């Protein structure tokens, strides 16, 4: 292939090579560059082997070595131009770059951070003093509780204000290395989520009328992503019957500290009921006491504990031929004060799958904090899935009923003008 003959030419000519479309296109990441701040790996590791034997992924520039790295599984980091520039860079840490205006700005931010740290200290002491007050000194239980809450909120805000102006925090967050246990990264993640993905979720839920049909209100506060097998399902996407035979995996990201116990319910409000000429509800999955926190976000519905969490196991959704598409809404509902629910009582009580989610929400005081949606319709894999799960309406097809016209009314010429 022309490419390898060029590689055999003298090395100098090789340096002037043009891009090969395949490699550069592969890692076209927008702004996900490796920061120069990372001090270079210790020199010892590359000295004993010549460069082209163990090429450094953040410095390699010749396409041949890049392809070798790709075959070994590690992709070259950033664009080729950046790697070429980094080869002979002095790698000064970002905050020590001697640009005068930049350093003046850092001084202002440095002073502001010191001030914020002092404020955190004073606020912590006031919080301690407030909590050590007895109830009647603090002017009643409610007054004390509200003042403590306000102080804690302010303390959290001060922590965020301390780190919000830090370019390294911004770079880490944009590179995806934000550690969600820290309030600043949770805040940045929340803001990024609310800028776009949350609007799309709310639009899908309201336009497909999941909100008035399944639950009256839902203000999504946690970011939910759903995976069937390897593929991430967008809100409102059609899912093949074969893919949805196994329970989905959820990635629920909270933007506050601490841990929460949530109930996860997957409900289908579009089960066609031909006799009553209407639609029924069916709960495809119900699990309680599922612990989620800012750092541990992965929840695999198939791996939840049968004896203490899963009330109704996963029922693969199937749509009969000819029926309108089924909207399967996933709701993450927070349990009151995150107190665990009595699993045995629920397991005994909630046996039927036709109970609507509104009744469940009312009886167990659940508050919807997260939502997701996918749709199923008749496709060529539905028949086998119906046979596997023993769905009784397998060989039945739905056709539109004939609309009887209004009774004939004779035209009455006398009534014309």
């Amino acid at each position: 292939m022309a490419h390898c003959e060029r590689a055999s030419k003298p090395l100098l000519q090789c340096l002037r090579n043009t891009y090969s479309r395949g490699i550069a296109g592969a890692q076209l990441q927008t702004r996900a560059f490796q920061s120069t701040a990372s001090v270079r790996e210790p020199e010892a590791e590359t000295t004993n082997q010549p460069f082209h034997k163990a090429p450094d992924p953040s410095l390699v520039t010749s396409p041949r070595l890049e392809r070798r790295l790709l075959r070994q599984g590690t992709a070259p980091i950033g664009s080729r131009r950046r790697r070429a520039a980094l080869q002979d860079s002095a790698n000064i840490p970002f905050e020590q770059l001697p640009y005068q205006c930049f350093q003046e700005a850092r001084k202002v931010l440095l002073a502001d951070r010191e001030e914020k740290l002092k404020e955190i200290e004073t606020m912590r002491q006031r919080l301690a003093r407030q909590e050590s007050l007895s109830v009647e000194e603090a002017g009643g239980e409610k007054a004390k509780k509200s003042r403590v809450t306000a102080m804690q909120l302010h303390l959290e805000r001060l922590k965020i204000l301390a780190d919000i102006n830090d370019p390294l925090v911004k770079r880490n967050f944009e590179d995806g290395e934000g550690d969600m246990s820290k309030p600043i990264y949770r805040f940045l993640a929340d803001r990024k989520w609310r800028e776009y993905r949350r609007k799309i979720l709310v639009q899908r839920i309201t336009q497909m009328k999941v909100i008035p049909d399944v639950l009256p209100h839902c203000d999504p506060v946690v970011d939910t992503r759903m995976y069937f097998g390897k593929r991430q399902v967008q809100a409102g996407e059609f899912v093949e019957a074969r893919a949805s035979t196994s329970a989905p995996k959820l990635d629920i990201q909270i933007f506050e500290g601490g841990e929460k116990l949530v109930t996860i319910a997957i409900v289908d409000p579009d089960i066609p009921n031909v006799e009553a000429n209407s639609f029924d509800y069916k709960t495809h999955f119900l699990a309680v006491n599922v612990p989620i926190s800012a750092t541990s976000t992965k929840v695999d519905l198939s791996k939840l504990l049968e004896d203490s969490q899963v009330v109704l196991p996963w029922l693969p959704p199937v749509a009969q031929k000819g029926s309108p598409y089924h909207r399967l809404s996933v709701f993450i509902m927070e349990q009151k004060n995150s107190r665990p629910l009595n699993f045995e009582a629920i397991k005994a009580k909630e046996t039927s799958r036709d109970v609507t989610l509104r009744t469940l929400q009312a009886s167990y005081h659940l508050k919807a904090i997260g939502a997701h949606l996918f749709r199923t319709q008749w496709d060529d894999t539905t028949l086998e899935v119906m046979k596997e799960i023993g769905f009784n309406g397998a060989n039945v097809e739905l056709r539109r009923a004939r609309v009887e016209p209004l009774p004939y009314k004779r035209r009455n010429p006398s009534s014309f003008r």
Partner: protein
Amino acid sequence: MAAREPSRFLSRALPRASVPSIRPQGFLSRRNVSDEAPSRRLSDHLSELESASSLSTPVPDSAAQSFDPVARAKARKTQLPRGRYQFRSPKYDRGPLHPHQPPPASDPSSRLFVPGPFSAPRAEQTYDATVAADIMSLCYVHTPPGFTPPPKAPRLREWDDSSPYHKNRVLRGPRGGDVLRLLRKPIKFNNIPEIERITIHSYVNKAATENSSWLHVAGIAVQAISNVRVETFKSKTSVANWGIVPGRDSVAVKAELYGENMYHFLGKLVDVVLPRIKDWEGVKGTSGDSSGNITFGMEPENVALFPEIEVNYDMYPPKMIPGCHITLHTSARTDKDARLLLSAMGIPFYGKIVN
């Protein structure tokens, strides 16, 4: 470590544009709230901050003597491979749900990015340093503590129920005419009148009757003196002897000045142009729309006195430089306060003073 469950909504102090301020709903106490000491040690709180923060250590001066990007660029024998990724911010706003959103105006890659302020205008410094404090002390009216002003009658009068139809009827107009004037709050330290914006508007009648060159010259002249791209307006009404028909041709240019531009323009106006206008009394005392905006007109030859136009006066075709109306919008609520402010900034007034 189940960190204390603290924050629910954090948006007050942060820039409002980035985070919508959400009312704090119910407080969610944590499962183990009771047993853990709520007021943890300072180190717990500080551990929640970013440990490797770049703002924690001042810069050692010795670090960057070797930093010389220009020499390094010259030393490179071969050119760097071409950068392939060119982000361009979208030209049109396709709504909030479009995946490709324009970056904020403060982002340098945004089309609306204006490089930062390069100068501190004299007018602004004068106002902040002396004029504001002087106006406050001049208009100071002492009210003893605990003094509440006497309740005024409601501005919209009630019907006198002389007829049964008066029930639920819309309230009558205020006393003396049906124009409700702005309420004037006493001038205190947080209510000192200041200049909000300046509008330069120029009506070019020959643009309708003759060709568009009149409008272009007016546009570039106003753009030169105001440092702001002008906006053109078409005629709305039809006036026979001016030869204009609604919507046919654009006959007026307008420039709105805010912030730095505004203060620079005011400084030029007060120091350079107005003193050099031949036998100019000042702004008429009756000018003002009783809501704190003062307007005055400039003849074409006075507009030519602006330094930007004077410096290349011969580049403008003769007799084509436009006259214009300059409106100074202030945050004052009455003409009296507006005139007080503008006279303090250097704009003379003459003739009968009408409030």
